[in-house]
């Protein structure tokens, strides 16, 4: 009764112990990315071409940026994730948590073809590289809203009473959006009280905590105007819903999905190759076509139909995006969340 079990355990242990030592090139690497259409796009645009070129399989570890960061913190001693996608904001926290390794330009030659804005450095280490921008712009129901909105202030118009949605601080865009509004209204980050006063006057249908909740609200007609990510808004429009997305005259707040090399990974070479693959014009162009992520790689050409759906809108470019300093946002985070709870999320 006992002997076969012991034998099986011993055999299993032997396999586990010897397997990594045998392979020079690992059979697979583990990459953390997001769920849904994001994960599908990362697989199709980066992982599959990578496997085709190198023969290394890619195992997906699906989770949101924050979940991935917690996993990396817990696995610090012996990471099982080799490469991780995390959004701007969480990326800076990952740097502070010391779970990211330097991206070496020799191992990742395509860093040279990447926009300088998308290479994130702390001192002499490159801790992250952007693989595409997305923005939070004005989204509206083209049937219910006759004239396309042009300004964020249009959300306060009486005709949109009880049919507006903007992100809540539970959403990753929530805290930066408060600071973005403060900035376009001429406020200072130190004094957000006037901004909160004005948000309190907004007759909102709901404050969305997830991108899915926003999509749902526009789809059901609960919200007919408000903020949404270009990725989610155009996805709705592509499905045939009467949804429009514009970058207002004040601009749109934007951030990006970044790749990180996990510190202490035993498969560093393969991981670097994977990141290099993500920075090819083909991969970047593919992500733009599938998710409307604004390419972070130089000289990527996309179809005109795709170009107008990129985060900077029809006329902008990466230079017109309002990309904030996340380190500053992270220091103000707890105060903004607290003020929001007391001022807005309460009757």
């Amino acid at each position, binding site marked *: 009764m006992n002997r076969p079990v012991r034998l099986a355990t011993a055999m299993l242990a032997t396999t586990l112990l010897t397997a990594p030592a045998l392979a020079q090139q690992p059979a697979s690497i583990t990459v953390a990315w997001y769920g849904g259409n994001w994960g599908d796009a990362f697989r199709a645009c980066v992982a599959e071409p990578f496997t085709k070129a190198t023969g290394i399989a890619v195992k997906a570890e699906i989770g949101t940026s924050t979940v991935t960061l917690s996993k990396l913190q817990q696995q610090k001693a012996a990471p099982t994730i080799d490469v991780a996608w995390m959004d701007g904001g969480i990326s800076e926290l990952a740097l502070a948590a010391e779970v990211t390794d330097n991206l070496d330009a020799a191992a990742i030659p395509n860093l040279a073809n990447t926009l300088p804005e998308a290479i994130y450095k702390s001192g002499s280490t490159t801790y992250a590289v952007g693989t595409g921008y997305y923005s939070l712009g004005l989204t509206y129901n083209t049937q219910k809203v006759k004239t396309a909105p042009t300004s964020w202030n249009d959300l306060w118009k009486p005709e949109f009473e009880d049919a507006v949605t903007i992100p809540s601080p539970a959403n990753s865009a929530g805290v930066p959006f408060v600071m973005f509004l403060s900035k376009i209204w001429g406020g200072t980050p130190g004094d957000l009280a006037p901004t909160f006063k004005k948000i309190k006057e907004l007759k*909102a249908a709901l404050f969305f905590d997830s991108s899915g909740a926003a999509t749902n609200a526009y789809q059901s007609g*609960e919200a007919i105007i408000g903020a949404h990510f270009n990725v989610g808004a155009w996805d709705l429009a592509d499905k045939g819903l009467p949804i429009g997305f514009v970058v207002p005259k004040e601009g749109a707040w934007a951030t990006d999905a970044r790749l990180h090399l996990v510190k202490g990974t035993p498969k560093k070479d393969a991981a670097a190759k994977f990141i290099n693959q993500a920075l090819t014009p083909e991969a970047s162009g593919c992500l733009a076509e599938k998710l409307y992520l604004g390419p972070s790689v130089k000289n990527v050409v996309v179809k005109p139909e795709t170009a107008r759906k990129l985060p900077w809108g029809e006329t902008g470019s990466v230079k017109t995006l309002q990309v904030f300093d996340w380190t500053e946002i992270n220091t103000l985070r707890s105060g903004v969340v607290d003020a929001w709870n007391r001022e807005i999320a309460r009757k």
Partner: protein
Amino acid sequence: MSGRLRTVLLLCALPAAFFVAFFLAPMAVVLIASLTTPDGHLTFAHYLRILADSYHWDVLWVTFRLGALTTLVSVLIGYPLAWYLVRVVRWRPWRRFCVILLIVPLFTSNIVRSFGWMVLLGRNGLVNDSLIGLGLIERPMRFLGTELGILIGLVYILLPFIVLAVGNALAKVDPALEHAAADLGATPAGTFWTITFPLSLPGLMSGAVMVFMLAVSAYVTPALLSGGRITVFSMLIFQQYSSVFDFNYGGALSITMLVLTLVLVTLAGRLSEPRRA
């Protein structure tokens, strides 16, 4: 003898290890975080920050009020439903079908079902359309972002727990006791209140406690149906862990909620304990 003891120990070791690894250890991590500063010194500052601030008490009041209302409504709907299933339905296939109907939603995630309610309760949703169609209201009523909306969602999700617990208790009541009461001249209502109801009370209580605990700790349903306009305590905890990353303060919020819920449930248990002669 020692061989048998070893088998027993081995059999117990697995669940015990599971309990320690997946319940006690995480709980200890949260508790320790709640009592320390980020650099590891002992402090009660997080608890002081919670308990000395009336804002937190406001949110706790909303949370426990919603929990109590959810329990009350679930009991009022669930008890008759259980009665119907156990006592009224005679045709077995129909009873089985009703039970399946009751349980099937439990196989779908809360998120999907709450999204469903967002669509149903929306301004252009089925509920408002029907109410307007029937001429009961003129303008769409606001459900999303109100406590009523959250209550509807929570009752829908937690109702099966009451029905199953009460149904189980009712099925176990010995019909001979009720016949005896009727023989001795008790009216049907008298029989119910003196015999059947007290005997089903343990089932009702366990169902009610389950519903209350699940309602006050619910996150997904209130988060989606509140539209970010009402805050319940679990949302404050989620914010600290997922968006502010203050695990110490978040831990203290979690422990506060846990302790208060346990106190309330214990009190309720004491009050409703059947008096023994």
